[in-house]
C-alpha cells in the first residue's frame, strides 16, 4: 500500500529577552547552576509573577510576521503537574486565549512554488529548569537558571507531508524569529526545539491516522531522521496488521530510533485554569501599530528582493536568506565587489564550506565581508584567476592578511602580458609535437577537448598565474594557424 505522511509541529522558541518572563532574573545562558534563579523563579512561598512586556512584544512581532490575529486580551493559565525542575508545580502558559491566533507560514521552494503551512496559534509560556542526572550519584541535581525563560510555542496544523517539508517549516520559523531578532536561534543551547506529531494514512484517504508525538528534537538533522524512522515504524506496524498507539515518544539519536515515553492513558490531567496571580493582558492598538512599523525585512521578502535586485536564482536566493547573518554577509560582499552572482557563489561555496569545516558561525568568520568582496574584485579586474583566488582565500583564512598583500608577497598576480604568454605557449608547442599533430588531425568539434592539455601545460609553467582567457585566445590562434 502507498502511505501518506501527515506531520504537525509544536515549535518552542526561547525569546531573547533580557530578563525572565515573570521575574527580573537574567536569561543569559551558561551561568553556574542556580545563580540566575531568584525567589520568584524558585517559587518561594508568597512570591508572585509579573509579566514581561518585552516577551509580549516579541510574540506579537511573530504573530504579525505570519499574518496572524493578535489576541487583544490574552490570558495566562496554569498547567499543573509535579516535576522537580518545575518549581511551582505548574507551568504558567496560555490555553484558551493565546496571544497569537491563526496564521500562515509560507514555504517557498527553489522554483518559487509556495506551500502554506497553517499555524493554529502561538502562545507565551515559561520554560522549566533542568534536571541533571549525571553528576550526582543516585540523586538528581536541579538547576533553575532556565526556569522562567520566556518561550513562544508555535503550533502548526497537520499540513506537512514529509520530513523534508517539516524541516523546511522549522527552518522557516527559525529564519523568521532570528530576522525579527526575538530569539538568538541557537539550537545548540536549546533556543529552538520542536515536537513532531506524526501519523500516516493510505494515499487518497482524508481521515487522519492515529498520531504519535516525538518530543524535544533540537536540530534540523534530528527532526528529519526522527520523523523518517517514526514513519517507517508506523508503516511496519500497519503493514503487519498491528495498530498505532497514541503516545508520546522520545528520539534516540545514537540508535536512530524512537521509544515510547508514555501513552495517552498515562498522560497527566493538567487541570488547566486561569492564573489568578496574573490579570488578563490587554494589548493596545497603538502597541500593535508601533510593532508593525518596526518590522524588519522578513526572509520571504529578502528572497524576492535578491532575485529581483541581484538576478539570483530562486534556489540561490532561498539558500542565502535561510540564515539572516549569511544573507547580510552576502549583501555586503555583493555591494563591495559589484558582482552579486560571483558573491553568492563565494559565500555559499568557499566561505560556508570553510566555516563548516572549522565549525565557525558566519559572525566568527576570519574573513569579513569587505575582505571577501575585495578578493572577488581582484578576480573581476583580472588581477588573479578564480583558481588563484581560492589559494589566496585559504591564506586569508589561515594566516590572515588582505588579498592584495597576499597576491603581492606571494607573487600571485596574474600573467596577462600577451608577449610573455605567447613565449610560454611557443615553448609548450615546441615540446609537444605529438599532441600538436593529434590536435591538428582532429575534427574541429573534438579539438575543444584536446586544447585542455595545452592550457594545463601553460598554466603549469606559469605556476597558475597566466590569464586563462589570454592563454585560450593565443593558443587557439597558434594551434589553428
Amino acid at each position, binding site marked *: 500500500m502507498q502511505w501518506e505522511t501527515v506531520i504537525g509541529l509544536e515549535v518552542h522558541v526561547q525569546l531573547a529577552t533580557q530578563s525572565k518572563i515573570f521575574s527580573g532574573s537574567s536569561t543569559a545562558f551558561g551561568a553556574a547552576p542556580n545563580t540566575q534563579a531568584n*525567589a520568584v523563579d*524558585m*517559587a*518561594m*512561598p*508568597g*512570591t*508572585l*509573577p*509579573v*509579566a514581561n512586556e518585552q516577551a509580549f512584544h516579541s510574540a506579537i512581532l511573530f504573530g504579525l510576521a505570519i499574518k496572524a490575529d493578535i489576541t487583544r486580551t490574552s490570558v495566562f493559565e*496554569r498547567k*499543573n503537574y*509535579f516535576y*522537580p525542575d518545575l*518549581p*511551582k*508545580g*505548574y507551568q504558567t502558559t496560555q490555553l484558551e486565549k493565546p496571544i497569537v491566533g491563526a496564521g500562515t507560514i509560507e514555504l517557498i521552494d527553489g522554483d518559487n512554488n509556495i506551500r502554506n503551512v497553517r499555524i493554529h496559534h502561538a502562545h507565551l509560556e515559561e520554560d522549566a529548569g533542568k534536571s541533571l542526572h549525571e553528576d550526582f550519584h543516585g540523586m*538528581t541535581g*536541579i538547576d533553575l537558571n532556565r526556569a522562567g525563560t520566556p518561550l513562544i510555542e508555535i503550533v502548526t496544523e497537520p499540513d506537512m507531508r514529509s520530513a523534508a517539508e517539516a524541516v523546511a517549516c522549522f527552518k522557516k520559523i527559525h529564519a523568521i524569529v532570528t530576522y525579527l531578532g526575538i530569539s538568538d536561534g541557537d539550537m545548540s543551547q536549546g533556543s529552538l526545539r520542536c515536537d513532531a506529531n506524526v501519523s500516516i494514512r493510505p494515499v487518497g484517504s482524508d481521515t487522519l491516522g492515529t498520531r504519535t508525538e516525538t518530543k524535544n528534537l533540537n536540530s534540523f538533522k534530528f527532526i528529519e531522521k526522527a520523523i523518517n524512522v517514526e514513519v517507517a515504524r508506523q508503516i511496519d506496524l500497519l503493514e503487519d496488521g498491528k495498530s498505532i498507539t497514541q503516545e508520546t515518544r522520545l528520539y534516540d539519536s545514537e540508535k536512530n530510533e524512537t521509544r515510547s515515553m508514555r501513552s495517552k492513558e498515562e498522560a497527566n*490531567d493538567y*487541570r*488547566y*485554569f486561569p492564573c*489568578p*496571580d*496574573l*490579570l488578563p493582558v490587554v494589548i493596545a492598538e497603538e502597541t500593535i501599530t508601533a510593532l508593525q512599523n518596526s518590522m524588519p525585512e522578513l526572509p520571504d521578502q529578502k528572497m524576492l528582493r535578491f532575485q529581483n535586485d541581484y538576478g539570483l536564482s530562486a534556489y540561490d536566493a532561498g539558500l542565502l536568506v535561510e540564515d539572516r547573518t549569511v544573507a547580510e554577509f552576502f549583501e555586503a560582499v555583493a555591494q563591495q565587489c559589484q558582482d552579486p552572482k560571483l558573491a553568492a557563489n563565494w559565500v555559499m561555496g568557499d566561505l560556508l564550506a570553510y566555516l563548516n569545516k572549522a565549525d565557525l558561525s558566519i559572525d566568527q568568520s576570519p574573513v569579513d565581508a569587505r575582505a571577501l568582496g575585495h578578493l572577488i574584485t581582484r578576480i573581476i579586474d583580472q588581477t588573479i584567476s578564480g583558481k588563484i583566488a581560492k589559494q589566496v582565500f585559504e591564506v586569508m583564512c589561515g594566516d590572515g592578511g588582505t588579498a592584495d598583500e597576499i597576491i603581492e608577497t606571494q607573487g600571485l598576480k596574474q600573467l596577462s602580458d600577451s608577449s610573455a604568454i605567447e613565449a610560454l605557449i611557443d615553448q609548450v608547442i615546441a615540446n609537444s609535437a605529438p599532441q600538436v599533430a593529434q590536435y591538428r588531425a582532429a575534427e574541429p568539434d573534438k579539438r575543444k577537448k584536446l586544447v585542455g592539455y595545452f592550457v594545463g601545460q601553460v598554466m603549469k609553467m606559469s605556476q597558475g598565474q597566466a590569464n586563462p582567457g589570454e592563454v585560450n585566445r593565443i593558443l587557439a590562434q597558434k594551434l589553428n594557424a
Partner: protein
Amino acid sequence: MTKPNTELHNLTIAELHSGLQQKQFSSHELTEHFLQRIAQLDTELNCFISVDAERALMLADEADQRLANGDTADLLGIPIAQKDIFCTRGMRTSCGSKMLDNFIPPYDATVIARMQQAGAVMLGKTNMDEFAMGSSNETSYYGPVKNPWNTNTVPGGSSGGSAAAVAARLAPAATGTDTGGSIRQPAALCGITGLKPTYGRVSRYGMIAFASSLDQGGPMTRSAADAAVLLNTMVGHDPLDSTSAHAECPDFTKQLPKSIKGLRIGLPKEYFDQRLNTAMADKVHEALQQLTALGAELVDIELPNSALSVPAYYVIAPAEASSNLSRFDGVRYGYRCENPTDLEDMYTRTRSEGFGDEVKRRILVGAYALSAGYYDAYYRKAQQIRRLIKEDFVKAFEKVDVIAGPTSPSPAFALGAKQSDPVEMYLEDIYTIAVNLAGLPGMSIPAGFIDKMPVGLQLVGNYFDESTILNTAHQYQQVTDWHQRSPID
C-alpha cells in the same frame, strides 16, 4: 528612665504615637512591656508561633534612634504582631504548617517591608489555621489559640492568633489576612476591629497564598481609628504584585470624624432570615439603632445569589489552593520526608506528612473541581456564580453607601465543637465569604456580648471605599464602648 507604665497596653495607636513622640516612654520600654505580657499570658492563649525578643528590642532601639532624630513616621516605635503568613526575612514563617516549620524566608513580604519603613516594631508571628484554612484556629500545627474571653472557646480563624493577641492586649495591633472571612470572623469572636480591604488594595507579595483571587491582608486592631492608621501604611500599588491596584490611596484617618448623617445603610434581607439566631439578630439590630440615632438611614436591599456564595467559594478557593500549594514538594525548602526511596515516594510522603487534614481535604476538593470532565460543572460554574454575586453587590451599591449585617452566625463556640464536621465549620463564614468573592472591603466591629462572649457587626463598603466603612465604624465607636472592653484586667 521612667518605669514602664502598666497601662501602656491599653493605649490606642494615636496615644502610643504621641507618647513616643513626646518621649513619655521609649519604644524599648513599650516593646519590653508587651514582651512581658506575652511571656506572662501567651503560654495559655498560644497566640504566637514565634517571638524573637532580641530582634524586637533591636528594632525598638532602631526606632528610638529614629525618634531621637525627629522622625515622625506613623508607626514609629509601635509594636505590631504579624500573622505568620507574611514572610519575614531571617525569621521563620510557618503559615501554621509543619510543611514550613523550618522555613526562614530570605525576603520580606511587602506588608512587612512597609510596616518596617513606617517604623513598626515586629513583636512576633501570630498563630493561624494551617495555610489560613480554617475558621477556628484548630488546624494550626502549633495547636489551637484560646479565646481570651473564655479559654474553652475558639478565637475564630484563620487569623485567630492576631485577633486573640489584640483582644488580650499582647500587642497594640496586628495584621491578618482574609480569604473568606479570616480577618472579620476572628475579630468578631474576639471582640476587636478587623478590616479586609478591597481586593488589590494591599500587596500580596510575600503573603503565602491560599486562594490568590480572594486573599487580602488587612489590619486587626482595637478600634477603627487604629485600623485606619495601619491601613495607611499597608496599602498602595506594588510592582511585585500584578493584581495590586493602581487606585489612589487617601489618608484613611481623614474621613473618620465626619458625621454619618444621611448615610444609607443597606440591610440584605438574606442576612436577616430565619437562619440568623434571635440573640444575634437582636445585637445587630441594637447596633443598627445606634447608627440610625447618628443619622444613618436603613434601606432594605436584596443580594439574591448570596445563598450560593458558600458553595461557589468552596470550589474556587480549594481549586486555587490545590495549585498554589503544589510548590510544597520537598524539593527546594520546607519539610521533606526522611529517606525517600524515589521521587514519587518523596512527593507522596512529604505532602502526606507535611500537610494537616484540612489542607489535604481542600487540595483534594480543588484538584477534583479542576479535573478533566468536571471543570465545567464545578470551576466554570462557580466563576459564573461569582460574577452574579458581584453584580448583586454592584446593584445594591447603587442604592446604599454601606451594607450591614452580622459577621458570624454566632459567638465563639467551644474548642473541638465543629472539628468533626467540616461543612458546619464552613458555614461560620456564611456572611463573610460573598464579600471576598466580590472583592469588596468589609470590616467587623465589636457590637456587644451574648453570654459574655463578643459578637461583631459587619460593615461592607463599595470598591476602594474603605473610608466610608471606617468612618461609620469610628462614629459608632464614639457612642459605644464595646471595643474598649478587655477580657483580661
